[in-house]
């Protein structure tokens, strides 16, 4: 059996962590071919070729794939689909945009956020904000799926897969890119970071979020946020952790001024060690925290930062 994996390529660079986790998850199903598409994708393809367990890399380098617009990317994947039984991607926003479109074009039901592969037809995935784990068996000839990266380890390095050019597909030309608003950051990327410090509504303002960032920087951690913190403008949208934000599973997750709504827990409860700092001792976050500290974040967090 053969697997086509859409590599996660952003602005010409491979998101190696997300791609390698998907490779590791999919390898038991058969030979994994990684497709790297983008306006600049050759460097990403060369990088993907070194992931252990990759059998082959296809590169589709063309301006039409520059901004991962759903329509041309889906058309490309569908044009290549004939050779594969499984068509997959790591569960990033790009993949969640593209893969359901691919599935519908192949008259298949997409299998989102696969957290365990039982066999070639059977997969586990979380539903209801992670309050239930479903095992589903696909009846479709081709399985189109996204891989929940937080559930898998990354494949190692040391591969040397051959790289070749994919035949490009026609661009349906239905959408065009206008602009990006991306904040550059020196911090680790949220979904691959070993440590994450997140702030919630309790942090109170964008300025006061500096307290969270200072702790994160001391720990070499990524910064996350609850939906309430993002909605209130304390933190940018791409920091949101949860059911409808990013899913993280670091070694250490520190939740500060976050109550612990089920929608937030869905994005972080697989973390290895969870610390909660909250002034309300009844806050539900304490029910899942390994270490809970009841107190005012404005005094405890700077104290913690100072003592590390």
């Amino acid at each position: 059996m053969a697997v086509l994996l859409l590599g996660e390529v952003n602005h010409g660079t491979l998101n190696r962590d997300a791609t390698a986790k998907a490779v590791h998850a999919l390898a038991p199903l058969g030979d994994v071919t990684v497709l790297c598409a983008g306006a600049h994708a050759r460097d990403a393809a060369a990088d993907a070729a070194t992931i252990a367990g990759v059998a082959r890399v296809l590169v589709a380098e063309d301006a039409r794939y520059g901004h991962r617009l759903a329509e041309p990317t889906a058309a490309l994947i569908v044009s290549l689909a004939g050779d594969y039984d499984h068509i997959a991607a790591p569960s990033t926003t790009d993949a969640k945009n593209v893969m359901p479109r691919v599935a519908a074009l192949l008259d298949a039901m997409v299998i989102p956020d696969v957290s365990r592969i039982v066999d070639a037809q059977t997969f586990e995935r979380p539903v209801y904000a992670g309050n239930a784990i479903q095992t589903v068996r696909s009846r479709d000839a081709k399985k189109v799926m996204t891989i929940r990266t937080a559930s898998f380890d990354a494949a190692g390095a040391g591969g040397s897969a051959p790289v070749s050019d994919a035949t490009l597909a026609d661009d349906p030309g239905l959408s065009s890119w206008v602009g990006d608003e991306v904040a550059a950051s020196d911090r680790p990327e949220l979904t691959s970071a070993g440590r994450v410090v997140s702030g919630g509504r309790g942090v109170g303002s964008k300025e006061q979020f500096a307290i969270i960032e200072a702790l994160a920087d001391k720990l070499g951690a990524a910064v996350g946020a609850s939906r309430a913190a993002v909605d209130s403008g304390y933190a940018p949208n791409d920091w949101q952790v949860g059911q409808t934000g990013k899913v993280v599973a670091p070694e250490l997750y520190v939740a500060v001024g976050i109550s612990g709504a089920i929608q937030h827990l869905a994005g972080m409860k697989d973390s290895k060690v969870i610390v909660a700092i909250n002034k309300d001792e009844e806050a539900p976050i304490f029910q899942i925290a390994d270490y809970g500290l009841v107190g005012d974040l404005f005094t405890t967090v700077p104290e913690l930062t100072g003592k590390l």
Partner: protein
Amino acid sequence: MKVLVPVKRVIDYNVKARVKADGSGVDLANVKMSMNPFDEIAVEEAIRLKEKGVADEVVVVSVGVKQAAETLRTALAMGADRAILVVAADDVHQDIEPLAVAKILKAVVDQEQPRLVIAGKQAIDNDMNATGQMLAALLGWGQAAFASKVEIDGDSAKVTREVDGGLQTISVALPAIVTADLRLNEPRYASLPNIMKAKKKPLEERTAADYGVDVAPRLEVVSTREPEGRQAGIKVGSVDELVGKLKEAGVI
């Protein structure tokens, strides 16, 4: 311009889902059900387009059990003009998959000819995040998923999307599908007079068979279980104790 908004009846977001003891699914009997929160946002956006004079009619559609009529009434009370209920199941535990919903919605779109469909980004029960994108594929339309801002500009829509790296703005040719993310707007509450008025707004009832769509699932649910629970942790009395524990645990 006509705007179509698909709305799903789901478990209320405040209710914690409970897995049935026999592993056959999540218990939905006697559980509070509501409109999917993302669909409230989608309905709100459509109504705002009407208030701005960009849209002239807002049609809401739901696929599922008969009780979804209540969800449609909520959308009508918010300000939608008319509703279509497509009955496709008679047990509340029978979920209709995004592919089947998209096929039914395609048939509705073929009939209604909207210029814009605004769906929610994700139904909070099955967390699929798929229907809008699948509908766009079946129609051969462009898609703008995870929208936090929508501006209609003649024959296209300029949409800002919430993506992993931040925000991306694209322009998509109309007709198109937009899916609503959390920060697109804050949906209004229906006022009592509007709830009364909504009772008189038209609600047509159809069945999946009327559209010739087979709703048999492609993903057979073999079993449903609870996630592994976390072991109860401890409360520490001070920052010093916390630092000590984290060192012991080897995470700092």
